[in-house]
């Protein structure tokens, strides 16, 4: 039946038993990421990320708008995540909570960490700025949407090219992409999310949870950091409390993992 179904008793029982022996149900090690594949689409600004069976597509588009009145010299960046019924049998289009989680994470990771230079998006202060729209579509939900969506969004932003603009006082001329080559966005750094799930009373931990692990977890924690090993954000929303040793350990593991992910991102954006 197409409804939010919880995993069966033997699935959760088996998952815990296997984790207590250090094994995961898909045969991975506890700190193993699934295989990550990033592909660019036909237009710049369109990226598909595949993390194991999870598939996410991000698309960046831009338009000229008025700025917010309290921020006249900054452009606007909007994030939107969508989970349609095609991505998993239990997803109903009225279940908004997962979409909100992913959208909020993207906002924290990319906007609040100041990864995107919004002042560079200003055309004429107080009148015209660029509004960027990052749409993330979840095509297949097999666990850990946040990491995959974050990678897709940052790759799409780095591959995106906006039309070139010449400003003369108060007037601005926006050049057609056929007349002048479109220009890249100004991105300060590349944040990457690394998510962990906890089980039992919080003592068992895995990296990059699969769908079953996500449905059975008691706590969830995401570390966001960039290639310079700077921690941009730590996110823990609800669940069993974690000790500070566990948090430190998660951050250390994330620091070790971010290199591999960043290498793949660099390959995908430097095309």
């Amino acid at each position, binding site marked *: *039946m*197409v409804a939010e*179904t*919880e*995993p*069966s*008793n*033997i*699935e*959760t029982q*088996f998952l815990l*038993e*296997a984790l207590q*022996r250090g*094994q*995961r*149900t*898909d*045969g991975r090690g506890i700190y193993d990421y699934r295989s990550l594949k990033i592909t660019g689409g036909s237009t710049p600004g369109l990226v598909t990320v595949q993390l194991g069976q999870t598939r996410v597509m991000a698309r960046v588009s831009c338009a000229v708008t008025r700025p917010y009145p309290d921020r006249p010299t900054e452009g606007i960046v909007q994030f939107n995540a969508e989970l349609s019924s095609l991505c998993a*049998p239990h997803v109903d289009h009225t279940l908004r909570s997962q979409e909100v989680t992913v959208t909020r994470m993207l906002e924290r990771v990319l906007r609040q960490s100041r990864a995107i230079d919004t002042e560079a998006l200003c055309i004429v202060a107080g009148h015209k700025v660029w509004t960027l729209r990052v749409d993330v579509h979840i095509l297949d939900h097999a666990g850990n949407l946040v990491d995959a969506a974050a990678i897709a969004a940052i790759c799409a932003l780095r591959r995106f090219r906006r039309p070139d603009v010449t400003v003369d006082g108060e007037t601005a001329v926006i050049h057609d992409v056929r007349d002048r080559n479109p220009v890249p966005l100004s991105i300060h750094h590349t944040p990457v999310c690394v998510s962990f799930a906890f089980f039992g009373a919080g003592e068992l931990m895995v990296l990059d949870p699969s769908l079953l692990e996500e449905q059975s977890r008691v706590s969830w924690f995401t570390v966001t950091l960039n290639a310079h090993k700077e921690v941009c954000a730590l996110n823990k929303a609800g669940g069993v409390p974690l000790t500070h040793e566990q948090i430190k350990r998660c951050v250390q593991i994330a620091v070790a993992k971010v290199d591999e992910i960043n290498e793949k991102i660099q390959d995908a954006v430097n095309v």
Partner: protein
Amino acid sequence: MADVKVVVPGDAIDTHTEEEESVLRLGPGLIQQAGKVNAIAAGVLHASSDTNHFWVVGNRRRYVPAEGEPVVGVVLGRHGEGYRVDIGSAHDALLPLLAFEGATRRNKPNLAVGATVYARVSVANEMMDPELECFNSHTGKSEGYGELTQGFTFKCSLGMARRLLNAKAPVLNALGDQVPFEAAVGVNGRVWINAGAPEKTILVVNAIKNSEYLDGKQSKQMVKELLGKQ
């Protein structure tokens, strides 16, 4: 074997035969519209020339219940005189409390919410919710049906589940030679495996999942490599 003909919904099928008078039998995936035969499922077209029988063999993941088929389900709750069971179909199935071996009014089974059962579809038509039974209603014996405890379940495509039901399935035999395990295969695309220790169960589950697109020889090779790493 003659060349394989892959059809998609909407393809017109040529069912011309030498004997014009014989009855044409259309199996799953084909319908007759205005005197022509059209495909309504995607897959490989099969034809049996001696019985004039045509059908399409396709693979999908959503299950449509049919009477007599074994399925693996998860109990969602108790509903009056039975349990509501999720078998992956559009509607939940009903499993009556008395449809178990040795069940009487005084002695009813007690399944928890979230329990896994292996059952047989007893009623399936498009007008009613499907119904299950956990025993053979003619003999009254459970014959392998009932609650599944321990072990692990996973999902696969419907075509894969049917291949696994064959006792000679290469991947199951190759695994069974080295690792003893129990399996309950539901044609609704859910499989239950119990190999005792969790590591062994995980090994068997992943080996079966990997064998979806492999043929017999490749399956044996894959199992050999997987077991060799242990």
